[in-house]
Structures are given as C-alpha cells and as structure tokens.
C-alpha cells in the first residue's frame, strides 16, 4: 500500500484500441493527481469472468476505487479527466502542499 493509500481496479474489454485508450487515460489522470503513487489493477473481463462477476461489472470500462474508502465507481468513458477525477474523489490538480481545504474527495 502506498503512502496515499489510493488503489483502483479497472475492468476493460479485450485489447481493443478503446480499452487501451481507457487505461492510458486513467493512468495519466492518476499520475497527475496522485504524484505520491497509487495502485492500479487492470483486468480484462474476458480473461477474468469470475472477477467481473464478483465485482458485478455491467459495462466496460468500469473503474472501482478500492481505497481509501468509501468505494466509488465510474462507468463508461474515462476521457473527461476533470469529471473522472471528481467522480473518483481524487485530489485536485496543483494543490499547494499541506493545504487540504480544497480537497474534492
């Protein structure tokens, strides 16, 4: 577990261009907002059907924020970084160190 404690699971559908794009978008977002690091597990629904069943996945891509709690999910497109960041409760961009008053979590 990293210092910040952020960990995600991303479900994708196969090695399509869309899937790869979704993964890239998410990684970029997390790298930007979570410079201290994060954990990301990427699962292909076709390779891991039981995991998809367990997590009740309906749609790809689906991002599940596993920690810190509370859990959140984003379904559908990950291209709008701002909205995905809000939905996942990530810290805002360019936050001055130590100032948590603008935390959007």
């Amino acid at each position: 577990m990293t210092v910040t404690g952020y960990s995600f699971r991303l479900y994708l559908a196969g090695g399509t261009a869309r899937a790869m794009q979704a993964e890239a978008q998410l990684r970029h977002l997390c790298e930007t907002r979570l410079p201290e690091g994060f954990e990301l597990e990427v699962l292909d629904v076709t390779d891991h059907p039981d995991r998809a069943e367990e997590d009740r996945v309906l749609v790809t891509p689906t991002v599940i924020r596993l920690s810190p709690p509370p859990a959140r999910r984003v379904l559908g497109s990950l291209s709008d970084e701002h909205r995905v960041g809000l939905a996942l409760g990530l810290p805002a961009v360019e936050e001055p160190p130590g100032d948590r008053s603008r935390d959007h979590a």
Partner: protein
Amino acid sequence: MRDVQPGSPLPTLASGIPGLDHVTGGGLPQGEVTLLAGTTGTGKSVMAAQFLVSGVTDAAQAGVFVTTEERPEKIRRVLGTLGWDVRAWEAQGRWAFVDASAGAHPETVLGDELDLSPLITRIGRAVERIGAKRVVIDSLSHLFARLGDRPSVRAELHRLIGSLEDLDVTAIVTVERDHEYDGVGRFGVEEFVADNILILRNVFENERRRRTIEPLKFRGTPHRCGEFPFVILADRGVAIVALSELQLAYSAPEERLSFSNPGIDAMLGGGPLRGSAILVSGPTGTGKSLLGLEFLAGAGEGERGLLVNFEESGEQVARNARHWGYDLDALQSAGRLRVMCQYPESTPIANHLVAIQHALDEFRPTRVVVDSLSAVERGASPRAFFEFLLGLSTLLKAHSTTGLFTTTTQSLLGGPSATGVEASTLLDTIVLLRYVEVYGELRKGIAVLKMRGSNHERIIREFIITDHGADIGEPFRTTTGILAGTPLELIGPEKERVEALFTGSPSRTGPDHLEMDLTTPAEGWRNP
C-alpha cells in the same frame, strides 16, 4: 427474431403460472422475450420469479434471474416467504443469479458510448453453466435509469434483449410504468421488446384493489383481449382468474338431484338438474340458509358437499344447523362435507374465487352452497362482483357441480326483482322466499320464479320453518301480490282471474324477470 415456417403455429412454453397460458393463447412464445410491464407493486417481480420457479419445479428447466435493483439475498428471502427454496436450487445448479444491481457506493456514468458486453457475457455464462432454458431480467427500467438516457444505452439494451434470443431461452423482462392506462412503459422502453407484451395493473376501485393482467400483444398467437383479474396468494404466488378458461361446451346433464325435502323437489319438477345454478332470494330471516342446508343434506351416496359461508363463523353455522337437526361436524368428519367460512371484506374478491377453485379441485364436491352472494357483493365493485359470479358459475358447470347461492333482498316484503338483470342470466333456477302478512301473522311464501330446462310449479306455497327443517305447505290460493311485496287477499269472482296470473300464462311472465303488476288493488279485493 426467429424464422417461422409460414402457416405453422409458433411454439409456446407453458409458463407454469396458473391461468396465464389460457390468457396468452397457449403459454409464452418459446425462445422469445416477453415484456411484463406494470406500475410499482403490481406483482411483476413475483410473476417473473414464478416463471422461473415453475421451470424448476414443473418442467425440469433451469433458470437464470438477472436482478438489476435488488440484491440476490433479498430476493432469496422474499421468494422464501412464498415457499420457494431458491438457495437449494442454486446449490443443485438449477437456478443462478446474475447480480446486476448497483452497490451502496456512489457511481458515475460518463460518456456517450456505453458497452454492455460484460453484462451480456455474464448472462450468457450463467445460462451455459447451468443449462438454463428460462431467463428473467428484473427490471430493464432500473437498468435504463441507472445508465442514463444516452444514445448508446438504447442500442445496448436492444443488443442485450437480442442476446437472449440467441441463447435459445424463453425470457421475461420486467418494465416499469408510471400510469395504469397510458402508454406501455417508462422511457418508452417498450420499443425494445415489441412482440410480446403483458401489462399488469393494480387499480383502486370501489375502495378495493383489483389486480389485472392484460395481454397487449402476442406475436403469432391468438391471445385473449382485455383485462383479466389475478391474485397473489401468500403460499403460491400469482394465479390468473381466467373466467372462461374451462370449455363452455359442457353437456347439460338430464339427471336430477334431490333436496332432503321432497316438497321442494316437487316444486322443481322433480328436483334441481345436475350442474345447474340455483339462486335462493329473499329477505333476511326467510330461511335461505336453511334451504341451502337442505340442499346439502339431500346428497346421496358418494356425493360430497361444499358450504362456502360469507356471513357467519363456522361455529355459528354449525349451531344453526344443529338447531334444525343437522350435524355438520359429523358430516365433515366423515368427509362428506367441507365448510369454508370467509370474511368477504378481508381479501379482494378474486381471491375468494381462487379459494373456491382450490376447494373444488381438492375436495371435488358434487354440490356447492354459497351463503350469501350479497355479502360478496357488498365488498366489491359491480364489475368485480359480476366477474366473481361468472367465474363461479363457469367453474361449477365445468365440474358438473350443482350450485345453490343465497342472496338477500333489501325490503322485508321482497319486491319484483330477484337479482340484477345481468346476473340473472347466469342462473338457471330462481327460488323466491317472501314474507306474507296474513291476518296479522307473519308467514313465509316460497315460489319458483324460473327453472331452465324443466317444468316447475308456478304456485306460491307456504314455507314453514320447523325445528326439523323446512316444510312446504299449502298454496296461498287466496292471497295475491306476495311476490310484489304487497299481499292482498281476494274474495269473490276476481279470485279465479288472478289465480290464472300465478299459474303462468306466458304473456305475463318472462323467464328472466318478474313482470307481474299486482300493486294496484281492483274492486272486490280487500286487504287481508
């Protein structure tokens, strides 16, 4: 959509829901999706689940339940209260849940292009894993609401429905509605499953709830039209009350039955015809219930009787019967009689019909007495009451069971009409009981107003209640106006003329309603 050979009937799957297959014209279209639409609380989820349950218990077909709103654990619990052990079936590989419900956590749906492949795949895997032939999605609307009204969502839901057909399963998909009589589903979701649509309603009328199902369309099969009442029973789920479910082409038996009182049989041309429906109508206290008992008591060897009482408790019924010398408890112990006491206001009227139907199926009585119809009528809208009567008389005729129903008229002296015009067409025989005021005494009269298929007496006789039952006495030859409620005694030459009115000149009386005008006294008559 499946290919169909021109001219061949589409294959159907028995739904397992009592009465439903009759209403749809023969089960659900096999291999296709049927939409089940209804407002909140109409029973869609129960009916859909029951379709799967019946597959498991009656047809050895496994089923997959895709739940979009409730968690599987809650569904197991709810279905458990209906007596269905879903968990056991899951362990046996005959039932599988696909949990498509949202969790408690916040969820955001973004973008215009959603891909429902994971859900479609999950359903396909579950179907394959247990070899399911039946699938339920409950509800499609909730899924639609969760994903939002985006361009891709409709297309993906369409693809989802299409995938069910590719899986070679017969499916029920539930859909929410907002109004009972406006459109099919919320969001216009009905465009996805255009071929087979059932609408459930739970309408409030006359201070009572009335559940109905309407087969709106069924591609390729001639379905019944209109709304059909149904019930949800605590121990069995949904049962549709299909009023004319049974063949109407039953034979009219010639055989006659007997009352325990030969005097009544004589008035009925020898006795009531088997399979006929007899109405006994009269003011309170004239002895209708007693007549019902005498009908049951006239049962012969091998006969069984069913008494459905809506007026009194079992104890009261037994006590009254003992007073006239009938031991109902002994008859019940001997398996010759069953007594059902119901509170008419306690449940919707359709439930009473279903309860009677069960009693007919299990106990197979040859005679049924319903005491009284008035109690049932009080607690129902006119339409619901007519459906009850229609259903009841149809059921009895189909079983060749002879029925006697009592009804209370409102005025003490009776009046011209035995019952509503509509209802009287369902009745083969009408017996009237009336009070007769004679020289300051309150006596009772009995007359057979009509009897289909047989001659009957047209004489109004005295009806005497003794401590051993009913006695049929002498005719009221010198009194007229009894049935109209204004008895008058005749003197002189008018007597013969009026007598003719009672002995049935065809021009004065019709078979289905009483038309005698005896309310205006003529010269030479005087009040008794």
